[in-house]
């Protein structure tokens, strides 16, 4: 008999939640205790995500959560849905693959500002324009937390605490909203980790949106950016309904101070291959393989 294959990383699992009764937040959390620093904004993102999934009532085996590498990218291990902790910067590419193979799944990608806008920045552009029906939770703390506090693409040019840039990065930061709009995104919202109820509502709206939805989350890194604790005072809600046309969305961007939370933009754009709803069978692949040989 052949040797048993050692399964990858043993994360999981607890008994499935009841199918008939309502889901609770706890149903979507794993038993693994997060190793984030006390006070890290990512705890609340986890809570908001679990809340959103409970509210949507989607069984955990119908949800896949894909991340890259970073403190924020540890998220999948702490949930009870399908999860994969992928290559640094590639969360969106991986999530796209999952969605193409299993269009029936609710696919969520998550990761940090470094993961998604620095090393993986190109995927962000193409995910926006490809409009695959999935949701991206971009946890922005304006720093590379995991590697101990270097400046990221969203860091202000004059932040001098980063050890790689002791005189400040000196270059203009990326504005995810502007980038996403320019690349053709169909849904963009911003939330704040300090307000998990609002964030949960935004995540629900993003998941429900047919197409690629970006949820930009201000999620403080209390260890390397302790001044971000003051974000609580800085955030304020967006006024008005989501823009449905680009001109209004751009005007919103122009008026945005980076701390406005809410749904900036939601337009009806055809998602990538919406007509393919069913998973291919293994036999489909086998057949094609035979013909090609």
């Amino acid at each position, binding site marked *: 008999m052949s040797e048993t294959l050692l399964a990858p990383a043993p994360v999981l699992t607890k008994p499935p939640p009841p199918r008939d009764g309502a889901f609770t937040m706890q149903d979507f959390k794993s038993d693994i205790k997060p190793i984030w620093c006390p006070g890290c904004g990512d705890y609340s993102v986890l809570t908001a995500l679990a809340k959103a999934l409970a509210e949507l009532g989607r069984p955990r085996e119908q949800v896949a959560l894909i991340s890259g590498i970073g403190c924020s990218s540890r998220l999948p291990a702490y949930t009870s849905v399908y999860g994969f902790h992928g290559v640094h*910067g590639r969360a969106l590419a991986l999530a796209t693959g999952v969605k193409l193979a299993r269009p029936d799944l609710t696919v969520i990608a998550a990761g940090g500002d470094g993961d998604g806008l620095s*090393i993986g920045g190109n995927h962000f552009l193409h995910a926006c324009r490809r409009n695959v029906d999935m949701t991206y939770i971009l946890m922005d703390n304006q720093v590379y937390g995991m590697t*101990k506090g270097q400046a990221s693409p969203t860091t202000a040019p004059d932040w001098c605490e980063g050890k790689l840039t*002791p005189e400040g990065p000196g270059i203009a930061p990326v504005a995810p909203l502007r980038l996403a709009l320019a690349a053709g995104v169909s849904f963009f919202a911003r939330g704040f980790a300090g307000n998990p109820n609002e964030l949960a509502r935004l995540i629900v709206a993003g998941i429900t949106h047919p197409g690629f939805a970006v949820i930009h989350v201000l999620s403080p890194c209390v260890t390397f950016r302790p001044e971000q604790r003051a974000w609580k005072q800085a955030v304020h809600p967006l006024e008005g309904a989501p823009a449905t046309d680009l001109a209004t969305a751009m005007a919103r961007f122009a008026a945005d101070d980076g701390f406005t939370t809410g749904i900036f933009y939601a337009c009806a754009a055809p998602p990538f291959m919406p007509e393919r709803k069913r998973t291919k069978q293994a036999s489909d692949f086998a057949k094609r393989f035979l013909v090609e040989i």
Partner: protein
Amino acid sequence: MNHLSRIIVCDGNEAAAWGVKLSRPDVIAVYPITPQSSLVETLAKFVAEGELDAEVMPLEGEHSVLSALQGACLAGARTYTATSGPGLAFMFEPYVRTPGLRLPMVASLVNRDMLSPQCVWGGQQDVMTVRDAGWIQIFCESAQEVLDTVIMAYRIAEHPAVMLPVNVNHDGNYLSYGVSRVEIPDQAAVDAFLGEKNVNWHVALDPERPMAVDPLTGGADAEGAARFVAYRQSLCRGMQTALAVISEVHADWARVFGREHAALVEEYRLDDAEIGLVTIGSMSGAAKDAADAARAEGVRVGVIRIKTYRPFPIAAVAAAASKVGALGVVDRAVSYGWNCGPVYQDVLAALYSAGLRMPVLSFIGGLAGADLTGAHFARAIAMTRAALREADATLPAPPSPIWLNADGEATR
């Protein structure tokens, strides 16, 4: 003569940064990664404090880092970067082109094991995966050797008969964070040692002869094929020439700075030895201690430490091996395709090329940050000795490896 200007206590990452600073690079490009980050952060600090006149560019990933350095090097700059594990993997595309372009870069690899499974600790799977990409690979045992070797690496890389990129390897965790006493050589002496900067005379931005570098070469026609082969041969020649240059540069270093480091292979207590351990990198210290302990009990064992791994010093390894009757090769990486350690494969090939036949065992340990202790080496010594005495039925048939950390016991 000893050009010692001061003594500090620092870890291997800081020692590497000192070596870089003394070598006066013009452009340093970086993307942080564990366990390299503190090395490049030290360089950024040197620049911010005005102690090093260089550009430090944090870029958006390692692929961009090495691409930016190719641009800088083509424009005539002396360059530096450092990376680890996944960072090296992401660098791969420009990495494989650098030797063929004959760009004399120096880059530290702060060795880290490869994923999956996810891990962030030391191991040499990163460099072993690219061992034949055409970069010169040198492995250090101590922080002092890291500092000295980074400086020597520039002279080796930029030697007109070599013109190849050099990776100076130091083990993540053990060397990157292990603190020891380090002598910082005098800047003027290092300047004299490195000579006038002439980084890129073959494809520089030269107003006398503007050129576009690296057009399409090769193809099915005979002329294209021959030209392509000529480039490949030239790279191999550069590698082989490097063996002599590395030895020369190390000899010169010892003469000027009074510190002798093995250039290709270090032989430790080998002269009357009946068996030898082959080691690479920071594990060698524990192996030497284990050899001392075994000798105190009458076991005649020595250590062969590989310092230069690419080009592989076939003759030096065979000469050292010819002194013993059996070898135990200890690797911190795996050759999946051969089911043994990569250094083990190289040693077998070197023995064959010298017409030597002896029992050789492959040991694999220290993966993903696991400790390689004196007790592990004592075990390797005992098993190698058993292999010398007789064909021991309890030993796995080569090349099947002996996994040193497989039993889950901390062996201290």
